[in-house]
């Protein structure tokens, strides 16, 4: 079975199997015997010290003096993302921060490019704009509240039909 793992923005198709000696990693046309024994990672016999933490679909690996984040893409999520969704209805936070102004409220009509919410992340002030014309359905944060990256800041009423 193929699996998808993302490192930064690049997706990799990988597959793990077993043979008599242990696990085999399949990457493209290549195969390597691999093993993980505590903090020792072995790939084709060569060992590297590693520290690994798993949090849901995310795997964090410290190796060669640097930390990396890998994200397992479940097949369902992967196909849903490829098919596209009502992303234009949802205005998300480009970075973590806090709200400094909310010029619109639920029910307001807005035009593409209108400022929906003004956020501050450290010393940067950013006006988050409407991606299209529409009606504001919800504003999910009040002035002073903080949020994390990708938080749903404002929802526009969907334009079905």
């Amino acid at each position, binding site marked *: 079975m193929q699996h998808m793992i993302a490192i930064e923005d690049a997706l990799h198709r*990988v597959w*793990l199997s077993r043979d008599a000696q242990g696990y085999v990693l399949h*990457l493209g046309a290549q195969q390597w015997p691999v093993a993980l024994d505590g903090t020792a990672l072995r790939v084709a016999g060569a060992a590297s010290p590693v520290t690994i933490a798993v949090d849901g679909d995310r795997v964090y690996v410290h*190796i060669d003096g640097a930390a990396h984040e890998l994200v397992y893409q479940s097949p369902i999520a992967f196909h849903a993302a490829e098919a596209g969704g009502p992303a234009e209805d949802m205005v998300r936070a480009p970075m*973590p921060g806090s709200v400094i102004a909310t010029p619109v409220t639920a029910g307001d009509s807005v035009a593409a490019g209108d400022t929906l919410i003004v956020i501050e992340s450290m010393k940067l002030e950013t006006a988050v704009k409407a991606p299209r014309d529409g009606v504001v359905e919800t504003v999910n944060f009040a002035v002073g509240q903080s949020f994390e990256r990708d938080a749903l800041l404002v929802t526009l009423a969907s334009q079905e039909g």
Partner: protein
Amino acid sequence: MSELPFRSVLVANRGEIAVRILRTVKALGLQGLVVYHAADRDSPAVRAADIAIEITGPTPVAAYLDGAQIVAKARAAGAGAIHPGYGFLSENAGFARAVAEAGIVFVGPTPEAIELMGDKVRARNFVAERGFPVAPSAIEDDDPASFNERARAVGAPLLIKPSAGGGGKGMRIVRDLAILDDEIVRARSEGQRYFGDGRLYVERYVERPRHIEVQVLGDAHGNVVHLFERECSIQRRFQKIIEESPSPGLTPDERTRICEVAAGIARAAGYRNAGTVEFIYGAGEFYFLEMNTRLQVEHPVTEEVTGLDLVAEQLRVAGGAPLGYGQEAVTSSGHAIELRLYAEDSTRDFAPTTGPVLIYRTPAGVRVDSGIVEGGRVTAAFDPMLAKVIVHGADRVEAIAKADKALADLVLLGCRTNAAFLRRLLADPDFASGDMHTGLIAEKPALAEDPPLDEDQMTRLLAAAALSLRTMRDAADAVPRLHAAMGGWRN
């Protein structure tokens, strides 16, 4: 320390500096108290304190800025002294006054000194009038009607700053005088928003400047010493990220001069407690920039080269004791470097990052002042500085090597940090040769980029992930070996 007139110290701060202050408080046999917002309930500062007192506010930051609430809680708890740390209420003269009026010792300078140095315009005039070097400038308050004309006369390049500013907020460099008027309008609106004060001043901008500051320490008996300089030229958006002492950019003569000027300014101001006089340095000239009337983030660099515990010195002089030593007794040995570990993504224009602290291991034998703890979470509620890594070596080359190894050995999983970026900075040839200026990072955008992973690294990362993911191991274990051996061909 039996001469101290207080038996307990309340830390009105959070994060790594609260932990660091509590360490000395407890080492001196004093009781350590800390205030905390619920967002910091499980923080290392709360764990380190003998008594932790909850404070509330509309936001976590607002709670730590609520001086009246903190003084009331300190009083109720019977705290003998309050240490404000840095940021928050540390340079708030009203807070210092309220603490004193509540019969509690404020661990810091007098309210008058905070007010003098907190107003950049007054501070600059004070320093200039006493014959210390300041950059050519124009101050809006002198005559608001002619401000733009006088600013133009300072000449390009120039720097616009809010009078009430600090930490780089609202500062603008103008190289083309044609846009000066527009930039003044923008700086004014930023000053108004950040500090509630739109007054400005401009000064000559030194191209390729170095940021050099001098640690000073004064007591209530008129004694002032300097504790040598720190170079903090490695900055991004006016935020320091690597600090060191001694500065690799000063000649011995310049070093003596800048340190003596700093001590002279502190003496003229009747300064008590720990403070830092900041200078801009370029082409053999240095100008007074500002004085910070508090303990600095980067104070450990000075502690490493002088062997002094700055928090212990602060507590001693706040308690009324004389310094007890003169300038000749303060010596500097070896070379110290501090690296600020930030929750930020250098490849996304240093946007702050958040996440769980799944694993946090600090390197053995190296001083790491941490505000995070394994099992905690990095949120956007506070400043993104997570920890400071501080190394000391016999010389700069040894200190850089130790710093690089410490960063490589520090493991933080769950939240992206600037550790790899810091290592690239340490390896930069200009940094290594000591040829730096405050624009170095902006001048070298490639340093912010992660180099692409090679095939070997990619394979090992994917192997580590595949072997750690339950889903993938289970899928492999479920396939009989015979089929597994053929699987690659059938797929």
